[in-house]
């Protein structure tokens, strides 16, 4: 699985209220609420982001609430992957479960700037920065989680397998 896109950069401890505020959770039309993604950080973000773009953040991305709408709105915006030094645990599970690739790549934040064009190779565990010609390797996620991602999320995975094959 290879993803290529333009980078948007966020800081440390980006929390689920900032990704999608509690007051937006009333609507189950996720395309509609995706318009409000990251509104507390950058109200213009959803107008600027394009399908295929990649988000990169510092530490503890997705901390806070268990709301699955957080990874869902990111996916709905067309973001192809999120890279961070590390993720908050519920956000991590939710993203895998809905089929949004997450990459824990400590150090990537330092070699990637906003607007850079990068390529993420999930199979090989490599990020290439075409803007700066730098490269960084990351630890691949466990195989059984890759299988969930490959099915597009846990619902499709369970429909196929009936149970978790750990």
């Amino acid at each position, binding site marked *: 699985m290879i993803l290529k896109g333009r980078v948007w950069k966020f800081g440390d401890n980006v929390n689920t209220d900032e990704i999608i505020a*509690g007051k937006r959770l*009333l609507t189950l039309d996720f395309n509609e609420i995706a318009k409000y993604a990251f509104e507390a950080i950058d109200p213009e973000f959803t107008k600027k982001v394009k399908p295929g773009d990649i988000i990169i953040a510092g530490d503890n991305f997705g901390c806070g*609430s*268990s709301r699955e709408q957080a990874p869902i709105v990111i996916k709905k915006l067309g973001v192809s992957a999120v890279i961070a030094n590390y993720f*908050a645990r519920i956000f991590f*599970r939710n993203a895998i479960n809905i089929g949004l690739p997450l990459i824990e790549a400590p150090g990537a934040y330092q070699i990637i700037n906003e607007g850079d064009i990068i390529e993420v190779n999930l199979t090989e565990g490599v990020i290439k920065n075409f803007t700066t010609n730098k490269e960084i390797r990351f630890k691949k996620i466990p195989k059984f989680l890759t299988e969930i991602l490959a099915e597009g999320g846990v619902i499709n995975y369970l429909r196929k397998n009936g149970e978790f094959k*750990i």
Partner: protein
Amino acid sequence: MPTITEKILAEASGVKKISPGEIVNANIDIALTHDALCGPVAREFQKLGLKEVWDRSRIVVTPDHFIPAKDMEAANLYLEMDKFVREQGIQNYYPIGNHGICHVMLPEEGFARPGTVIVGTDSHTCTHGAVGAFATGIGTTEMAAVFATGKCWFRVPETIKFNITGRLKRYVYAKDVILNIIGKIGVDGALYMAMEFDGETVKNLSMDERFVICNMAIEAGAKNGIINPDEKTIEYVKSKTQTPFKIFRSDENAVYREIIPVEADKIEPTVAEPYLPSNIRTARELNNIEINQAVIGSCTGGRYSDLEIAAEILKNRKVASNVRLIIIPATQKIYLKTLETGLLRIFIQAGASVSTPTCGPCIGGHMGVLGRGEVAIASTNRNFKGRMGDPTSKVYLASPATVAASAVTGRITDPRDL
């Protein structure tokens, strides 16, 4: 030698011994959801093409987030929850009139039992570790998988033990203790790990206060918060349910990633500044901060003992003229008790606005949403940007005592200075 968290996960997964880092597939004892997310869970569950949930007796549903319906969208969310619950014949349903904030209601109704595995579609599900259970928050799609299979996979967490010792000062509570712990280790200080709270201070805490400590484990990134059950736990749980339970405790020589000592006797009334629960200062240091609103409620600060403390401070006093004080008893049972014991009269005479149980303002839903640039102090658990309303508003977190004292003076106030 294993910790309590490892023992519970081993038992639930049907294996003899497990180590941190292993992935296990655990049987779920209780699955909890509420009005905001039951509908989304139901939608995902239906995609699986199954007719029935795995066990109607192990699912608990109570509306709490946006109720009574704050608008038409909330009303429709409620309907989706109600329809699914009735169609599936979910046995433990607490609709409006019988409702409560889920993390206060679950133990009150006897569903939080030692030795069990509890998952909820809410990050503060870690609250229930206070009875010696493994309890953690999950997302909606994951809950649909639990409803289908009765199982959930977990990476067995390493455990950090907090050895909390010393006698708490007057007007210092569990809330101040946990804010100090988060302040010390940071909002990711226990990422992916279990936080085990131990020591003489914890043994002396009431069950209400133990729930407060475990409730905020997630604010340090933890997978679960947990307290080894003792006589107090057993007495509490037996007073709520006849259902038998199994006690697990950490071995004396259990292996921890780290043991962190906490000197509780040195803790002062504490406040977390915006925009992270780890930004702690003493209430006295923030005495110049003026407030527009004070909130006493939520799964962290709306239990009966919280309201009793608030009443002690508010009795024969008035809320400052430029402050709105909003008090939200966490469950219908607690609400009724405030009526019977006269707390409700004290609150209303002090000038507080008292509401039916709801999460309401804590998530910026309703019942006290903040406007542009407004400042609130709240006995809730999160102070992220825009959490209680407008993105330019600010939330300071504190104990119910500090919130009540601040409501009286109109600025952040150490209750000892009132």
